[in-house]
């Protein structure tokens, strides 16, 4: 499980996370919603150690992420993250994009890595694009490739940072479908998202991020049906 305990983080003088606490159990899907700039993306990059924190603790299966002794490279094999900007490696084909980390980080043989890659790519519906370069793919296809790339490492946890926000509306659905399949398979997921329908239908719990803290967290029915916190109510009424 992932435990975030009273985490504070500032960028210079700008405080972004002001005491975030959150626990995500294995197999749970937690959606994080909130206005832009509330710190949601920063939380994700802190969980996998890309960003340092100022105070507090983040524990992944008991390992303290920001302890000096922690081997972040090892930790990141267990946590997959997909960003808003797909970050496809432009000089590699789709298949090579997905097999790169398994081969170089996990030391797999080319054939073993390709077997896994083909499987993950077929799950996201890209079986016919294996030897294509990312520049020839649509945004939605690149994002699905990024998901397959992260999954090829067989992580225990998947973090999604607004993965549909950079896509044209007609491409959003295919990516959300991929996420839903993943959730149904039992993956532990934290999804920062603006897609309310997705949050309502797929999550076990929905968290509302406001001014650098988790203002409210509840299962979808309670969250959308009877929000407690005034800010949550305000936010939800603005979207309707």
């Amino acid at each position, binding site marked *: 499980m992932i435990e975030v305990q009273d985490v504070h983080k500032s960028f210079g003088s700008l405080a972004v996370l002001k005491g975030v606490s959150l626990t995500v159990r294995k197999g749970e899907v937690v959606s994080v919603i909130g206005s832009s700039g509330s710190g949601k993306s920063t939380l994700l990059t802190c969980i996998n150690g890309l960003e340092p924190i100022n105070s507090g603790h983040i524990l992944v299966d008991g390992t303290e992420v920001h302890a000096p002794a922690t081997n972040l490279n090892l930790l990141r094999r267990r946590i997959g993250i997909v960003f808003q900007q797909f970050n496809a490696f432009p000089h590699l084909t789709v298949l090579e994009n997905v097999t790169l*980390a398994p081969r170089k980080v996990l030391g797999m043989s080319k054939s073993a890595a390709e077997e896994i890659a083909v499987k993950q790519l077929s799950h996201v519906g890209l079986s016919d694009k294996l030897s294509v370069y990312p520049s020839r793919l649509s945004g939605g296809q690149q994002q699905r490739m990024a998901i397959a790339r992260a999954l090829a*490492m067989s992580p225990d946890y998947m973090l999604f940072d607004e993965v549909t926000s950079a896509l044209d509306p007609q491409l959003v659905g295919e990516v959300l479908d991929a996420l839903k399949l993943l959730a149904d398979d039992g993956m532990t997921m934290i999804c920062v998202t603006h897609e309310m329908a997705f949050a309502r239908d797929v999550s076990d719990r929905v968290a509302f991020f406001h001014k650098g803290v988790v203002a409210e967290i509840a299962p979808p029915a309670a969250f959308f049906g009877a929000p407690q916190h005034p800010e949550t109510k305000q936010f939800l009424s603005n979207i309707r």
Partner: protein
Amino acid sequence: MFNYTFHWYQAFRALPQMLHGALVTLEVAMLSMVLGVAFAVLLAVARMSGNRVARGLATTWVEVARNTPALFQIYMAHFGLGAFGIHLSPFTALLAGITFNNAGYLSETFRGALNAIPPTQARAARSLGMGPVRAFWSVVMPQMFRISFPPMTNQMVWAILMTSLGITVGLATDLAGVTQGLNVKTFRTFEFFAMAAVLYYLIAKTVMLSARLLAWRLFRY
């Protein structure tokens, strides 16, 4: 006006010799590029690192290479190092000088290319569990070379042209050296050097064309 008969047949007869010299020229140029690129990558990384000493040393190399003549750098390798007891042969001194020069110019090219690659590429690689060196080697560096390819091609042609400076330090085996040797023996300066000029032109053009073909094959994405 021309109180002189051109003896072109002598130049043509010397063609095999000069072609051998051309091979040595290519050898020096290619070696200087391979070594120069390797040093240039290290210099570019050093200049962008947080380590002040590394940055200072790298910047010194680059600025000296770019603000002093190539001939000076070759002289330093050949005459200057003698004060430290290091006596380089003309071939090695020429190679060292051109490599020093290549590394300086190419590191600036690489630095610009690295700045053009979004930091999110390295982030994505690190997020997959790659260490910093692996992330650089497999993800960032290939893109850096792709961006830098045209300037690298230009630098290769420069290196070929720079090898002609070898005659100032006594190199006799490259194209210019062979030509000069023939010149000293026969005093047919114009004919021999005209032939050499044609050969240099052809080599330079061939390199440019091959580079374009290579780019087309390598970078088809």
